[in-house]
């Protein structure tokens, strides 16, 4: 029996090696909105990847895609991807569909490796279930918290780990965009049902978990500016397991944020660090000051689409597929973001 099992393992290993040593990794994208287009475009130029199929619900977009991509299969249902011998699937659907789509990918054995755009799911219960499925059926997984691949935040993490500002004492974070700034309350425009916390605030929470470790929500307030149960801005306070206290301000109705921006100010025993998508500044207690823009931090990539961090993120996922090893932000680290968001909502409700 043991010999049979060994033979099976060797056979599986041989197949895996054969698959990976073949020309290219076979990848499909589910959901061809702006993030689907962006990832598919980058994947298509990565030398070890072949975009094999796209799954899209909208009939109109599917018809156009069939005329646009002559060598790519276009389907309307995830199940139809199962016979394509895929190495990985990118899930870039609306957030509310992540759970059902990823579940189908695993259960129908469409592919054993999955990349999901952020956040992982619509609540922690779903996120935990996806983690269980990934452990049971999956190989490699990743969630699109692309700011971990930004040169400014990477440098900030490096400096925090080196203790350049000493032990962090407290921090304040923001995640702002102008997506709905100036929109009339009575207009037909609707904010995404998923709310600002899961759409935008999740980036700040993921970075805070990465920088400072797990945290508990102490206070929370969520405001609706457009009515009908919309969540348009949020303010909350957390405390990490190490006793670092943090404040977050999140909104998609702030003027001057043409592209979404996330930033932190961290107070440490030996100084203050300020970091956002564009710049990193250090003010040390001894009077020394440092400032780095993207220009100073080696922001070059092989192909530029959207922002350099998307390329690095996709490159990292492809590397993890080849190495057969998870890199963060994976399902397990990202599920913690969904947990914190659920805590914020519960706290805001019970206020």
């Amino acid at each position: 029996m043991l010999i049979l099992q060994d033979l099976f393992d060797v056979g599986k290993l041989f197949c895996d090696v054969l698959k990976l040593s073949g020309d290219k990794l076979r990848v499909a994208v589910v959901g061809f909105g702006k993030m689907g287009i962006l990832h598919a475009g980058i994947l298509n130029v990565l030398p070890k990847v072949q975009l094999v199929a796209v799954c899209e619900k909208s009939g109109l977009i599917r018809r156009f895609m069939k005329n646009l991509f002559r060598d790519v299969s276009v389907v309307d249902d995830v199940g139809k991807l199962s016979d394509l011998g895929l190495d990985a699937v990118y899930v870039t659907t609306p957030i509310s569909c992540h759970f059902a789509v990823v579940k189908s990918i695993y259960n129908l054995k469409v592919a054993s490796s999955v990349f999901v755009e952020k956040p992982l799911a619509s609540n922690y219960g779903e996120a935990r279930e996806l983690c269980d499925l990934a452990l049971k059926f999956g190989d490699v997984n990743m969630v699109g918290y692309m700011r971990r691949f930004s040169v400014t935040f990477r440098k900030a993490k490096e400096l925090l780990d080196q203790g350049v500002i000493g032990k962090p004492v407290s921090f304040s974070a923001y995640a702002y965009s102008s997506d709905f700034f100036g929109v009339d309350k009575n207009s037909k425009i609707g904010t995404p049902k998923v709310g600002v916390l899961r759409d935008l605030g999740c980036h700040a929470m993921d970075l805070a978990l990465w920088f400072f470790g797990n945290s508990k929500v102490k206070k929370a307030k969520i405001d609706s500016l457009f009515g009908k149960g919309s969540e348009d801005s949020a303010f909350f306070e957390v405390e990490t397991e190490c006793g670092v206290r943090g404040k977050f301000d999140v909104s998609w109705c702030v003027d001057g944020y043409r592209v979404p921006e996330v930033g932190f100010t961290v107070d440490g025993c030996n100084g203050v660090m300020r970091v956002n998508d564009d710049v990193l500044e250090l003010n040390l207690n001894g009077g020394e000051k440092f400032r780095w823009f993207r220009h100073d931090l080696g922001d070059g990539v092989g192909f530029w689409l959207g922002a350099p961090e998307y390329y690095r993120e996709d490159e990292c996922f492809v590397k993890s597929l080849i190495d057969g090893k998870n890199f963060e932000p994976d399902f397990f680290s990202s599920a913690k973001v969904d947990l914190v968001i659920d805590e914020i909502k519960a706290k805001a409700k019970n206020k």
Partner: protein
Amino acid sequence: MSSREKAFLVGDNPFHGISHLSQERSRIRGDTPTSPEYAAKLVAIAVENGANGFMFSVSNTTLSILKILNENGVVEHLDLYGIVPYAYEYVRMASQKGGVPGLAKTVAKEIFFSGNFGAVFSGLNGVLRAKPISLMKAYLAYEISRIKTAAGKNARLNCVLLHQLVTDVCLGFSLDWLFRAYVDFMLDNGIKPGFNTGNFAFLVDKFRGWRMNLEDVIIAAPFNKVGFQMVPSKENCEKALASLPRPNVLAISILAAGYLKPEEAVEYIAGLLNIKGVVVGVSKEKHAYETFRLLRDKLT
């Protein structure tokens, strides 16, 4: 090369409140440059000091600026370089309208009510038969008519460039036939076809591979002393630039988004082959005066 042949273009980034150095900087800079009257004044000052063109993304803001430039008689001293679509506005619209299908419906409505019958016919044909080329032609006809209406009959629409995001998505998907259709459509309309790209070396390589005539097109791409946004590297971009058959590249981001001093930025550009011109955004009257004087002095 005579100064008339070299293009010194006023860029519109500050008019949209954009700073690629940091968003914070544009917030601190305030709203002044985004007022169409003030922006038109800056363009006029730049023209008095050596600018001979205006490069702009086609948006309500820039169309208002063009209208004022037309009324003031400045437009006839300018070559116009329009960039379509104004991608960031469309991305924002997609967020507000529930994604790409919602965005498509909104744009289709705009074209339909524009009264441009050629665009409407081509657009309907594109939608009914799911033909990307017909849809692209409808959209381009609509945008060109918007520019011409705002800029008036004395304006010279020299070139229409595909926005960086669209160019680079099409490059990513290797849509050579779409690039070709774009070039043919523009040439048929007597307008120079252009491409704004963040992947200059990649684009040159791809166009060569597809046997597209690089002499037919204008390319706008980042070139600066520190290699900011020069993908995959400064060296690769310089090499690709030197390999072109003729000067048809408009250097953008020459100041690396305000990271470099104008003097050192211009010195670097002056040493490059095949640069047709430069594009620089200005947010203050002093900048408009000094920058274009410097460009005219050092690059002609």
